[in-house]
């Protein structure tokens, strides 16, 4: 039994120009202890997928109109807001993209960790403080007792991100969702944080849902990858299969877009065009206007995800054996 199962997830946002449905039935599973990377470009729907999993999407103006989210054998969509509050932070926690704005500037960072602990565990301040200092130490921060009493503005970006990770892990969650956790950081700090993640994953045995646009980070720490494009998962599978033998034309293009370090290239491969807006997604396969292998069928029909290899799924008509699908 998977830890998290998302089936047929569809969202609707209401705007002045009418409703928008940015997700087109997302399906994925996350096993216990697995690190899954959800990869895609701006506007592909990766962040709203993550927010839907912890039912925070209504705060961004969205509404879940279809699908099921099963976490630990429980249906999250049937839970009330009160019940969800007990799950958020305790069983599922979220690390957001921007460490600069995620902490409250008027509270000491230690107290912000304690707040997270005391919401979910019945602990006295002293015990909670002990735990908080221990967590800060675990994040590889020198002088944890001093940092405990500091305010967010006294810390660097990398330090702040470590504190946020400490808050996220304070209640030993079964699932951690990290939304672009290193995008705002410098390369050397990014290396430190990713390294810290890798260590913590081994220690806490939590499952990780990593949302990112950086294929380098995915290759570094994920077990499996799901590639998203325009509200669809177009390819998913174990990390080695996706990087060494990408099957979907979008995955292939994306990997070729990254300049290689080991050799000097004359010309970079580029995917023509740009990501469509959710309001005017093309009919048929949503990638066809940018695809070099486009066939007649792609213009009118949407390909489903099919398994082409052990645990390797692709949504592309090139891999359908006959016209009815496999």
């Amino acid at each position, binding site marked *: 039994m998977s830890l998290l199962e998302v089936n047929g997830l569809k969202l609707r946002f209401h705007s002045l120009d009418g409703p928008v449905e940015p997700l087109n039935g997302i399906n994925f599973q996350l096993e216990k202890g697995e690190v899954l990377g959800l990869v895609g*470009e*701006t506007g592909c729907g990766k962040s709203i997928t993550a927010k839907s999993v912890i039912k925070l999407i209504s705060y961004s103006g969205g509404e879940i109109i279809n699908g099921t989210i099963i976490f630990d054998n429980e249906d999250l969509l049937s839970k009330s807001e009160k019940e969800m509050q007990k799950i958020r932070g305790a069983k599922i926690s979220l690390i957001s993209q921007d460490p600069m704005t995620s902490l409250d500037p008027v509270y000491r960072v230690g107290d912000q960790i304690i707040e997270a602990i005391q919401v979910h565990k019945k602990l006295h301040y002293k015990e909670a403080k002990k735990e908080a200092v221990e967590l800060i130490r675990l994040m590889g921060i020198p002088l944890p007792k001093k940092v405990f009493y500091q305010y967010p503005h006294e810390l*660097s970006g*990398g*330090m702040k991100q470590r504190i946020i990770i400490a808050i996220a892990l304070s209640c030993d969650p079964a699932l951690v969702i990290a939304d672009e956790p290193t995008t705002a950081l*410098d*390369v*050397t*700090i*990014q*290396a*430190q944080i*990713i*390294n810290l993640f890798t260590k913590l994953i081994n220690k806490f045995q939590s499952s990780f849902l990593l949302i990112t*646009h*950086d*294929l*380098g*980070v*995915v*290759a*570094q*720490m*994920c077990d499996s990858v799901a590639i998203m494009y325009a509200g669809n998962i177009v390819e998913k599978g174990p*990390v*080695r299969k996706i*990087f*060494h033998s990408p099957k979907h034309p979008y995955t292939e*293009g*994306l*990997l070729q*877009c*990254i*300049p*290689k*370090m080991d050799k*000097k*290239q004359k*010309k*970079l*491969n*580029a*995917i*023509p065009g*740009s*990501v469509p807006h959710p309001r005017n997604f093309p009919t048929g396969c949503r990638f066809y206007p940018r695809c070099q292998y486009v066939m007649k069928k792609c213009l009118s029909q949407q390909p489903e995800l099919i398994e082409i290899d052990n645990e390797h799924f692709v949504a592309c008509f090139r891999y359908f054996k006959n016209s009815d699908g496999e």
Partner: protein
Amino acid sequence: MSDTILKVKNLTKFFPIIGGVIRHKIGEVKALSNVSFNLKKGDTVGIVGESGCGKTTVARLILNLIEPTGGKVIFQGQNIFSFSRGEMRKIRKKMQMVFQDPYSAFDPRFTVFESLSEIFVIQKMENVNIKEEIFRLLQLVGLKPEHSDYYPYELSGGQKQRVVIARAIALNPELIILDEPTSALDVSVQSQILNLLQDIQHKFDLTYLFISHDLSVINYFCNEVMVMYLGKIVERASCEDLFQQPLHPYTKALTSSIFVPDPDKRLTIVPLEGDVPSPINLPSGCVFHTRCKFSSKICMEKEPEAVEVMPNHYVACHHFKKIQEK
């Protein structure tokens, strides 16, 4: 030397910190100290470094957008800091800049046409057929004449960056400073823009100063790189030399913090501990000694000077020989 287009000599910039009751100067941010380099015509030189290392300050000083604390910028044989505003306007035709964020580079209430035609008005070029010229520019950057009637919000990030590039090449400049031109863009669009910049460079024989924090992009795009750390250039070499044989410990750490998109090449060690020190209280001696594993007594006392270790490979480190032998 006739083929040197830009000479930067001992460029220094300290930003004052104003504070206290009587609003006096209480300190200085040492953004840039004693930076010198030359650019040859047709070169593409990259500046790489982490946030706060002074990359953008160099760009703004070269264009005379901010007052220097000391030093000279000699463009085509003339010191630009001695120019009056009127003279500066004339020389700006020859040097242009592409900024990082295409989203804030335009007046939201101007159409593309209005934004682009402003250039010719400001430069008092009445004899130009503005309409024809703008259509020609848009075509050059891969857009259609229709796009001239669009407002910025109607364009995607990639299209906006194309218009920014069109604006930069409108007056036939000789030098273009590209300040993180692709970091706000998605990877698939990034490669389109990089290819466009290369085409334009060949067409118009341009010189580029390319500022970025992304080493793989620098390696692809530039023929020479300067690595900056805390307002100083610590190493300068051709791309091949620098990436294959980095001599400064900071460059070494930078090049080994890149996550290659290949799951078989995972990093196992953290290349660099700690954070960048504050530019308000710079470390004594070599600014990097607080994070350097080769650091010794001399590093704390004496600032290393740039040495030409190999032809056209400069490094500012006391211990480069030790590193070279390793």
